[in-house]
């Protein structure tokens, strides 16, 4: 059903990309965008679910919304650090005008300010993975 990968880079990545957002539409949109490019994904609706997913298996990258119920983006970042896996690449996604500052606060690799388009999203993911993966 899914079309041929547009970007062959995705197929070389073994670990899935974890997408965290409490907005169902954004979550599905990001997952879909990544999957039609050939990335494998996992999804979570808040920071707590995301930490559970991380415990099941280390993701290759996390796309992280900041304002979420239960456990927010800052809480999730603390959770990663507490588990000694703070080195997982993180890209912040937020509609707040403080996107850049928030990304710096949790030591994220990059940020995407909503509204972002699919190409922006994919370019950012690709760039961060290249920088981190070598």
């Amino acid at each position: 059903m899914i079309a041929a990968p547009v970007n062959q880079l995705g197929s070389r990545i073994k670990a899935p990309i974890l997408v965290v957002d409490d907005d169902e539409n954004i979550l599905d949109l990001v997952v879909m965008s990544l999957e039609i490019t050939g990335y494998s994904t996992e999804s979570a609706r808040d920071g707590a679910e995301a930490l559970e997913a991380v415990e099941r298996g280390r993701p290759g990258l996390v796309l992280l919304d900041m304002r979420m119920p239960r456990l927010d983006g800052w809480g999730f970042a603390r959770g990663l650090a507490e588990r000694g896996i703070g080195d997982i690449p993180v890209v912040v996604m937020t509609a707040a005008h403080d996107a850049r500052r928030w990304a710096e606060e949790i030591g994220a690799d990059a940020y995407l300010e909503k509204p972002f388009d699919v190409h922006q999203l994919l370019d950012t993911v690709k760039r961060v993975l290249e920088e981190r993966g070598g």
Partner: protein
Amino acid sequence: VTIEQVLQLLTLLPFVAIFLVVVREAVWRPYRTHVLIALFFSALALAVGIGWVFALLEAEQPRVVQAVTRTLAVALPYLLLRLVAEFAAVPRLLMAAAGIGLVVGVGIVFLFPDLPPLATAFIVAYFAVLQLYSAARFVGAARSEPGVTRRRMQAAAAGSVLLGATILVAGVRITIHDDGMLGELLLRLTLLGSGLAYLAGFAPPPLLRRAWQQPELQAFLQRVTRLPWVGDIATVLRGLEAGAASAFGADRASIMLWDPETGILWVPGDGPDGRGTEARPGQYIAGRAFAEGRPIFTLNAAADDPEHADVYRAFGARAVMSAPIVAGGERLGVLSVYGPRPPVFAEDDLDLVQLLADQAAVTLEARRLLEEAADLRAREEATRLRDDFLSAAAHDIKTPLTSIMGFAQILEIKAEADPDEPVNVDLLRRISSEAQRLRQLVDRLLDAGRGEVGGLVGKHREDVDLADLAREVCGRYRRPLHPCVVQADGRIPAAVDRIRMAQLIENLIQNGQKYSPDGGEITVRLWSEPGADGGVARISVEDRGIGIPAQDLPHVFDRFRRAGNIDDRRFAGMGLGLYICRMIAEQHGGRIWVESQVGAGSTFHVAVPRNGPMTEEEATG
């Protein structure tokens, strides 16, 4: 130079000084009081002066000169009594007796130049009785007068007693033919004492005046120190006026404020814009002082300003003193003090009025600065609220916009990759629903604007079962984390704007869910309360969320206002939801309020009349 000559010169000096001051005053301001004071001290200075000249020449006074000197002396107590009558009621009989005494005295002086004991006794007695009477009246008047006037009255009393004593000593010396040094010394000392006391009373040096004004000024300052911080401008003015009236022991004082834009002086009152009496510069005594930029006074306001005579009479003002209130070269207004009778020592009072006006200027200026600071804070707060609102509005709009853009791009990518594949209807549906969400946001912004002008709720009312409506809305907001439960006893019918009522319930449910980040049931309760005119329909929406701090409770229904414990990072929002709820409730003729405890949750209450809002006829009938 003998000690006697030094003493004689010393005795003369105060009288010359007083003479110069009071004559100048009488020429400058020729009121009757001033003229009488000038006459009294001219006679006194002349009598003392003639004596001094002949003593200096070591010559006997010729008979005629002696008679003139003595006539002047005999006239003194009569002139003093006339002066006393200016500020105290002197019995007519006494005044007449004093007149007769004066004629008899002058007759004695000319007919019996050798002053036989009986004649001397008459003159001394006449002198002593009137001087003591006047002194007593000065003391009496001093009691009812404030500050400087009181001290000056007391000094005048002392001067009168000592002058009486001087004549007594002179009379005794003449009777017993005493030429000794001791008698001369006693005579000179009482005269010197009288001169100094009169100097303090009628021509006090500025230093003495300031010292005597100090207590009044101090009392005034104590009264007005806190004024800039209290209440509204009317309260501040009342405080200043009360302080000024009390400093003078006057009946009342008033402050008019200058409005440079309209060029009018005004006092706070019941008129439009909270103004009472208004005056142009030059109008009333106050307006004259303001226009001339200097303190002025009138002993008879009704006569000096006949145009407004009835106004002055209406509040029993006879003497009026006004001084401009000026701060840093800028005219702020004018202070006036009203009294039922003329001031005895007008120039002092005028001085004090100006001092108080200057202090009033400081108070008004301080108040203005405080007001400016408060304005600035309010403007900063408004700017902050607007900035918060703009960033919240931007956030709320960006999220659905991201979905719409993204899904559309995915459809595009898919279509380009495989043009033959059927269009993904789910994505189209999502785009459509996110566009709806965007529209709802825009509607809410527009609603807030409409709510402001009262046009949020339409005129149209339909009979709606609110319980049914609540169930319908609740059904749309069932979330695993936030179950929505409706509790109602049967039907709750009410005549409302159905769409707006649904919006109100929806906003409250959304609000409850939003501020319960850890989950929790949202309970919507509905019931009817019996009462006049069909009673009231009640709705409450309860959550178990973060709650609202007590100090924010009065503000949560304000536009753009969000409670202080809302962490911007967790909860985006425009702060319009509850504001719109309030508009809907109020425009249904009802009201909305909230009970809350931080950490335990909030319960929002709505009460709307079941038969719709009362019409104006119903409200008044």
